């Protein structure tokens, strides 16, 4: 990996502050990640793990109660945390674009498709209406919307869910961003439409050299689409590294448990490994490791001190005392136990 990465997060923290600071929700807590150009990073976690807040932080579109309380996020070496709001407006849609879960909510029902696909081109590249609309038609063609000439004049309600999501994709890539963040982009789509859409995204990525961040709770999407994986739990990245390394040899007990909790088509009779208990309340995290109360391998030490970042092997990180070099000798036994 020569040169600096496209995006580097360095101990980034976003907290929700309520009741004049009496209640603090550590939604994103000291997250460090890197995304190389043209690479796909999957961020997985359950509801409340902070993965969506992380996405909002990257675009600096947080709700009023949320504050970026620390850390840096470097895009091409420039720290986005320090940017002013007008500077951010130039970056959003131009360098970083985002696709949200619900295409009906991200399209304006009162404007035609052409208007909405052409808007970022007119705003960011100051193109004339005519050129912008021409490019909009080309984009619809690129996301395989049949008869784009007719479709640009239609409204979102005239399209199916799959088509709307492809239009949101077209808006996302309209200004050729370097990074596209997709927050659960296919949860509202049917299986065969989901397969079409994921293939389309991968094709667009290949053509435009896009870096992709996939935010999802679905490990199947990660297995299919991603190069790198970051597993979030209670606002922290508990494990990160290359997807196939993590799937083959997870280090953190939470990652392990998650992988064993999904039903597998090739082994339908296996009893699922349920993770007992509930995800913690982010406003009242337990001391030490936040997964310790649900962890089958928790030691007294886990309940006292939060584990720092360890490097179990080059290119991987894990926040778990079991990954500490001194404990690494015992890891073989651990992987046999879960």
């Amino acid at each position: 990996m020569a040169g600096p990465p496209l995006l580097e997060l360095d101990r980034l923290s976003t907290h929700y502050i309520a009741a004049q600071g009496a209640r603090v929700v550590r939604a994103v807590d000291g997250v460090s990640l890197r995304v190389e150009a043209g690479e796909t990073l999957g961020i997985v976690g359950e509801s409340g793990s902070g993965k969506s807040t992380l996405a909002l932080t990257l675009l600096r579109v947080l709700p009023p109660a949320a504050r970026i309380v620390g850390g840096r996020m470097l895009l091409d070496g420039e720290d986005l945390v320090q940017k002013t709001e007008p500077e951010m407006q130039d970056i959003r849609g131009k360098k970083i674009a985002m696709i949200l879960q619900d295409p009906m909510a991200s399209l304006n029902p009162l404007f035609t498709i052409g208007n909405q696909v052409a808007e970022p081109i007119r705003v960011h590249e100051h193109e004339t209406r005519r050129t912008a609309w021409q490019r909009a038609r080309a984009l619809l063609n690129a996301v395989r919307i049949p008869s784009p000439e007719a479709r640009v004049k239609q409204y979102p309600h005239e399209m199916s869910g799959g088509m709307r999501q492809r239009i949101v994709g077209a808006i996302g890539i309209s200004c050729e961003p370097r990074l596209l963040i997709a927050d659960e982009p296919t949860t509202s789509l049917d299986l065969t439409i989901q397969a079409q859409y994921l293939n389309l995204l991968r094709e667009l990525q290949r053509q435009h050299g896009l870096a992709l961040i996939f935010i999802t709770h679905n490990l199947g999407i990660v297995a299919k689409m991603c190069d790198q994986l970051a597993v979030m739990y209670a606002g922290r990245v508990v494990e990160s590294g290359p997807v196939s390394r993590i799937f083959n040899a997870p280090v953190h007990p939470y990652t392990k448990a998650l992988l064993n909790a999904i039903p597998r088509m090739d082994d339908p009779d296996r009893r699922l490994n349920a993770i007992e208990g509930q995800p913690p309340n982010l406003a009242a995290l337990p001391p030490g490791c936040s997964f310790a109360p649900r962890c089958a391998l928790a030691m007294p030490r886990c309940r006292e001190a939060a584990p720092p970042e360890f490097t179990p092997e080059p290119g991987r990180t894990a926040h778990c005392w079991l990954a500490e070099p001194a404990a690494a000798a015992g890891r073989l036994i651990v992987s046999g136990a879960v």
Partner: protein
Amino acid sequence: MTVIEAAGLTKHFSARRGVFVGKPGTVRAVDGVSFAIGNGTTLGIVGESGCGKTTTAKLVLGLEEPTSGSICFEGRDLRQLDAAGRRRYRKSVQAVFQDPYASLNPRMRISAIIAEPLITNEKVTAGQARHRVDELLELVGLPAHAADLFPHEFSGGQRQRIAIARALALSPKLVVLDEPVSALDVSIRAQILNLLRDLQAQLGLSYLFIAHDLAAVAHMSHTIAVMYLGKIVEMGEARALARAPKHPYTEALFSAALPSHPDERREEVLLPGEVPSPIEPPSGCRFHPRCPRAFTRCAGEVPALRNLEGRLVACHLYDAAETDPAPLPLMAAQIMRT
């Protein structure tokens, strides 16, 4: 012994196209569907939106009257039952729905929610009802003090346990599970799927399991029925069907399911287009406009479900000796390796 048997089950809804005026049309939501569910077994129904799986569930629950066709419960046709018989049927067939946030009344205590079916259907004293509530809570793995709390005090997974306890209050024979885990987090999903399997083994329940997560359906079901636009296109033993689909739609659907491991490589059949409207379903085989293996006959003639090595398949490809072999090479172009 079969608990429930549906024969030629059909449900049509009338629909007016256009907002104010327009010619009336008919939505053929379920069109001639037949299946049987044996004692203590699970029938899984899979298919995309609009395939009729939820309407089938409503017909079984008696929430919709079939346009034609019959449902037999323990050998007796529902249409021939008197009021007492129908009441007994309603008690024997219960449901668990997708969203435990919508299916529990926020103003009722858990004890009242679980006891409600008992109080409306059986002559029980307050003490007996409370005793049964305690039994049910233990059965679904909730603490006894949960009875005095309100739904908002529980997480999604716990709420789904409450919904299951309510469904079991009348000791039903068949439980209709309509997407019971789709609203839940991965780690909680495994808890609920395990609980449902344990309850089936313990109480000899039969399930009608509807979900879009194919791996979960394969994990839960003994038999799987694949529906497309109101018709069953393939039905058979769950593992065999998941491993070696015969109908081109089943093949495409299962190949669109996400892999459970990044090293998993398989043939992916990408379907062009989207599911057509059930108001004017395509002629002949309803799948033929999207089918990579369609030939002339498919557009003109509706394929019948026929027995093929212990499995039911509705596809002209398997009409022995009459199959036109010419279009098969076309398939190779549509299959791509990923």
